[in-house]
């Protein structure tokens, strides 16, 4: 079972991703901020990180930059999803280390499809 780590400070958003992804057979872990996310990422291997941009303690950019410099986890694919209404620059996300960039809201079908692609999970 592919493991996905969802890092977002909004509980609702985390729950939503969890619901959508678990329904498709993914194992989902949550972290409420970048710092917590980094701790969890280092503690056990994941197949994918889904990262929010703005978070308390450590934001998504910092988190991704740190991940990409940490050899044990640096090759893990990451999707960055910016907050609704903010037109964040995709380039900033890619510079930080994201492999895909979305702007909220992301449709569940879109999310699942891209998560499958980035984790190599077989098509349904």
């Amino acid at each position: 079972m592919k493991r996905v780590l969802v890092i977002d400070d909004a509980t609702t958003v985390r729950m939503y991703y969890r619901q959508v992804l678990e329904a498709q057979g993914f194992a989902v872990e949550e972290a409420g901020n970048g710092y917590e996310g980094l701790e969890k990422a280092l503690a056990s291997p994941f197949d994918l990180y889904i990262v929010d941009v703005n978070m308390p303690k450590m934001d998504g950019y910092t988190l991704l930059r740190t991940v990409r410099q940490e050899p044990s986890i640096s090759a893990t694919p990451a999707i960055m999803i910016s907050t609704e209404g903010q037109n964040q620059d995709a380039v900033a996300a890619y510079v930080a280390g994201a492999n895909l960039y979305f702007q909220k809201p992301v449709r569940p079908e879109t999310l699942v499809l891209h998560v499958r692609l980035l984790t190599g999970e077989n098509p349904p």
Partner: protein
Amino acid sequence: MSPLLAQFIAESRDQLELIGVGLLAIENHPDDLDRLNDVFRAAHTIKGSSGLFEIKPITLLVHAAEDLLDALRSQEVRFERAMVDRLLDAFDHLSQWLDEMERNESLPESLETTARELGATLRVFLQGRDVAAPVESLTAPVFADLVWIGQWAEADRAALYHRLATSAEPLTLFRYTPDSQCFFNGEDPFYQVRQLLGLALLDIAPVEPWPPLAELDAYRCALRFTGVACASLAELTTQFRYVPDQVTLLAATPETLAVPTGRAGETVHGGFVAEALTLVDQEDWASLRGITETLLDTYDPDTWMASALRWLLRMLDSTMPDPAAVRLLLDAIPAQQGPDWLQALMSSSAPVVAVLLQRPLSEIEQAAFQRVVAEQARVLDLPEDPATWAGRIGSVCASLANALRYVRRTDLLEELDEAEEIALSVHTAEALRNVLARLLDDEQPLPDEEAPLLAKVEGALIDKSALKTLKVDQTKVDRLMDLIGELVVAKNSLPYLARRAERVYGSRDLAREIKDQYGVINRIAQELQGSIMQVRMMPVGHVFQRFPRLVRDLSKKLDKKIRLVVEGEGTEADKNIIETLADPLIHILRNSIDHGIEPPEERLARGKPGEGQIRVKAYQDNDNVAIEITDDGRGVDSAAVKNKLVRRGLLTVEQADGLSDHEIVQWIFAPGLSTADQISDISGRGVGMDVVRTSVERVGGSVTVHSQRGVGTDIRLTLPLSMAVTHVMAVELDGKLIGVPMDIVVETVRLAPAAIYTIKHREAFILRDRLTPLMRLRRLLEMTEPATGGAALATLVVKIRGESVGIVVDNFREGMEVILKPLDGVLAGLKHYAGTALLGDGSVMLVLNLKELL
């Protein structure tokens, strides 16, 4: 009924409607690929969902239809008009079966045969198309031989052979060897095989001899499934898509079943094979049959020879025996072995052997894959940052590798690996970029901007509005409606309460507060009622959808040319009203087509265009929905109607002569009146227009007709928008309240007795320069009339069937909203009353049905 089944039925009906409309459009524009795709998709949806239930007839039939539609849209077969007829016919059956499913939750088994027959009528069109291998085909045989087909009893194979000879269904052989660990993947091979479409013959055997019981591992699957299915290769490919590597498939011909079996016996009489082959060359099937039958008699039935000869006869039974197949069977006779049908299949013009490939990627998946690749290219193009270089390359490659696995391009993984190594060691992403560029070139060119691509992906998913629509069981809405109705009535008791507070308890303040509260509750109740009414509203176009089909079928049958023009389909009305509308409207249309519109020659002779026109137009008219059906046909023959009326004794000659043409024409709504000279199967025996009127009036509507001889007929239905709450005008009669539906009340006047004229024992009065008949309600209800003296008479002017009539009542009271409950039980026969209504003070008021009373 299970909610899932109910959902399936409801959804399939929706799809059928789409299909019906789509097919008609296709008939006129066979090149409309979009339409064709729509219809195909709808059929596909039904087939897909039907697989969830044990309803083989539906699956079989839709499958055949889907095949034909698919062949049409891929232009493998050319469009023929007859196709539309057959398809419509097939889907009509389907519609009936859905009704049957709704009643009994299952279909009788006999329907499977019907489904096959119907399917065969569709498959006829598929004969002779180029059989393109639906999946990547290999030329290497996948089965070593086909003698295993002989394991099934000859009788079973013969029955199947016979069926295939008549139905033109495809035939596919399969061997499914499930992975021994398959149970751990949640697979159920036995179930899967049993669910196979068109499964005809099945053998289940252990892959290896059974081990001793003590060593048997019950968690390993040790079975192999071999069988024959009446389904196409593509169909089985889809069904086995989750276990492609464990299945071998072979598209076969019916002859493949002709494997003689039995004990080896005497060899063949010398000369038979040679003589038979000569007859085959001459295609003298009758003689071949003769000598075969003679020879068959000389063999013991359970010998190999007898079996071979029986198969030979079966082949000769078909209308067009295949010389090649017959020869092959004859060739096998001397050695009493074979024939090798596999060789025949392989060498035939279209090699149809295939191994399975997985489900092709959808457009959405393709687009998403392209996006992933494009984004990785973007990441690689960023300015280099030594600190994150390794991580960046690593994650890009991991993402790409995973995406490649998803799209099953594992052949590129090695190349990607190498490129990654180079990128990490030499610090240049050039090789990696090349791989990416190839992936991007591989597929369709990527749009310049990502936004439209993403929009396409998103748009292709679910229609936004669909997410915000809620499907609700109608009974729930009806229940809500009932409750709101009760609420509306219950709130009416508050004014009574206020009056009591003031009069009985002398509290004027309390009375005022109650009245204030009443105002608030009244407003909320009305809004509530309005919103729930909105929920039940639906466009009348829902009913109109059937019309094009009706007009098409009937006009074809009658050799008439008719153009149907539909307007105002978007006009909304209560669901119940719309449903009651369907039958009357169809009736009127049938009448127009059958009796109204003349045959083309007759029309041309009268100087009209050869093509007749029927216009159905809906629009909202105050609180009513009006629907007009206008045709430019011959119009109602008022003389014929008059004749018939007199002959039936419905009117005296004198009465009839006194009526205007317009008044005469209204009589077509009288029970049992038909001017058609002959009974036709189109508009029936003339039990028509009276039924139309009754059903329209039952929901509080009315119907009028205008017709001009030779020019056309215009029938107009007026229906209330909603039938939940009725506006009535209360009038006083003998100290009691009686209701009159507000929609027929035109005005109220107080009439001085002197203004009443008596003409031929009938009373009338002048209303705005028009002589208007006057009735007295007391007389109509056979009540005694008190002397009124010279007081003015309270007169209600009502409009019934387009005519104004004055009704004298004792006194007027207020207008009110009530829930009309029809009379039931023994009282249901009292046609003079539309029903009863409960008033706010708890008393019951009778509501008149003046149309019946007058």
